């Protein structure tokens, strides 16, 4: 018998009293979207991200230009980069990504491979910009998963701030492996 079948048989023979699965509330509070956004911004700052609020596409472009300057960048919002060979991705300093969900309680933003030419873009560039419309900000993780479950993806990740470590004497250092810097641009007109 295979290890699989042996193990499954063994598990079936262990009698564990049945325990029912609890219902999970969403713990949603009645709050105006501005309050939810405010908490999101606070949490983003707490997890080490920079935040920029904008109201027009033009403003968005201006901010991105200002941030990126003369550096090389991959703008996943702008065009199709599926031709980009992996070996080259590493040479770009900036990456601009589309966020699909923002979570107010912890500053996490959902990014998935629907808008990623290559998956490693979530951790390979030195600096990262994520663009997110205000309407996609939810209060907490329970509400976030209500949105995730409707998505089709092969790879998805909640990113909360720049990559970090505190493995040397508990001293926080930004930029362990992924982005050393993260700016979140929130479009509050949407």
């Amino acid at each position, binding site marked *: 018998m295979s290890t*699989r079948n042996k193990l499954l048989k063994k598990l079936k023979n262990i009698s564990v009293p049945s325990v029912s*699965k609890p219902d999970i509330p969403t713990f949603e509070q009645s709050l105006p979207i501005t309050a939810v956004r405010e908490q999101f911004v606070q949490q983003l700052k707490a997890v080490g991200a920079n935040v920029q609020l904008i109201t027009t596409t033009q403003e968005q472009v201006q901010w991105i230009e200002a941030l990126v300057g003369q550096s090389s960048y991959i703008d996943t919002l702008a065009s199709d980069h599926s031709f980009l060979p992996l070996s080259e991705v590493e040479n770009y300093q900036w990456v601009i990504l589309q966020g699909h969900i923002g979570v107010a309680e912890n*500053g996490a933003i959902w990014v998935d491979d629907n808008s990623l030419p290559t998956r490693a873009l979530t951790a390979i560039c030195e600096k990262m910009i994520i663009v997110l419309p205000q309407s996609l900000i939810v209060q907490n993780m329970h509400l976030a*998963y209500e949105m*995730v*479950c409707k998505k089709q993806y092969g*790879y998805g990740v*909640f990113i909360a701030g720049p990559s970090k470590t*505190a493995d040397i004497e508990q001293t926080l250092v930004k930029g362990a492996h992924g982005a050393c810097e993260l700016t979140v641009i929130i479009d509050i007109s949407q």
Partner: protein
Amino acid sequence: MSNSINHARNAAQFNQDPQKVTWHDKALWHVREKRDSSAQQIQEWETLRTLASQIKAHTLSQLGDYLELFEKQALQNGIRVHWAADAQEHNQIVYRLLQKHQVSKVVKSKSMLTEECQLNTFLYQKGIQVTDTDLGERIVQLAKEPPSHIVLPAIHKTREEVGELFHRTMQTEAGNSDPTYLTKAARKDLREKFLNADAAITGVNFAVAETGEFVVCTNEGNVDLGANLPNLHIACMGIEKVIPEQKDLGVFLRLLARSATGQPITTFSSHFKKPSKGREIHLILVDNGRSEQLNREDFRSSLQCIRCGACMNTCPIYRRSGGHSYEATIPGPIGAILSPGKDLKKYSQLPFASTLCGACSAVCPVKIDIDTQLYKWRQIIGKDKSLFTKKTLMMKIGGKMLGDYSLYHFTAQLGKRALRLLPSWLINNHFNAWGKSREIPEVPVQTFSTWFKNQQHHEHKK
């Protein structure tokens, strides 16, 4: 049979450097404090703990079913699923996959399971280059040490020690122990490894039966970099890591990082559902003693553990004895209830490395009654004839003595006199241990019983 580890001796050794103990204790207590202030911000914190505990208990009550469902969904997603009965089979599966893909260089992210299986040692022997990419793991790998904590692997090392280690192994500047400098140096060194790796090995925090996806949580992004660059991704998980539904992640991700480090969530919570085009994801489901633990009614709930490490940060013993004193893959309170299930003789001292203060159970995000299980392991060890020691004999005599009032009373009186007059007689070595750093209580003029009898006598007279 393996030799028993001696936690008391290891702890005493750790305490030979009192300043280091102070430093270690403070570093971990600080993490505990961060956890407290983070949890305080969540009104429904205690409700979340209850939910998490119930979800895990429910899953364990139908573990086989959920594993089958997970396998089915994962296969549909294009993830290849393997099953391993023990560490050896797990390591063989990994090796076969690496051979098939002609892999010589592997990047690894943190996985307590591969520590448990001693995968690194196994792969070194096969001539495969394995690089741990989590900074803490990398530090202990370079130092040729096991991790001393499941979330903070190098918490036992000072920045100076890391600076010296990096100088020796990565040629950083001598005497520079600035954490930012050292982290950047490691980033540069590891970036090279990431780009040249043929395969990635990661752990798994949660595997969702409903969707066939698995979630890995990191702060550094080493999983997202490691697993998404090479063509082969091998994820290794214990069978207890499966959870029923995706929405359950909402509960666990709210608890995990807050309990672990006080962060509201880890920087990266990465969901792997399907391999990208032209690549392979393999997932290995490992038993390695978990089904036995499931079969032990009293210790079953130890499998609910989500490896946050909060019980270690909170444990007054762990903080003052260091993770290495446990000589187990998982140290601290949770390790002390998991390890005896793997090797009772070897780890028979670990359930005694506790005052049963219960802080571990109160801090645990999935409400494992750790201190109760420590107590229960002690009873099993006490009854185990193969572990019969001088202590067993003493305790048997003690039981006889305490059970017979007149004998107990007589011995107690004698003992009290002995404390004053004949410290070496009757008083065994353990009493000497008491007196080493503490005064023995002064003997009062009368016992409470004597007082009470006299007092009753007076009242009657009145």
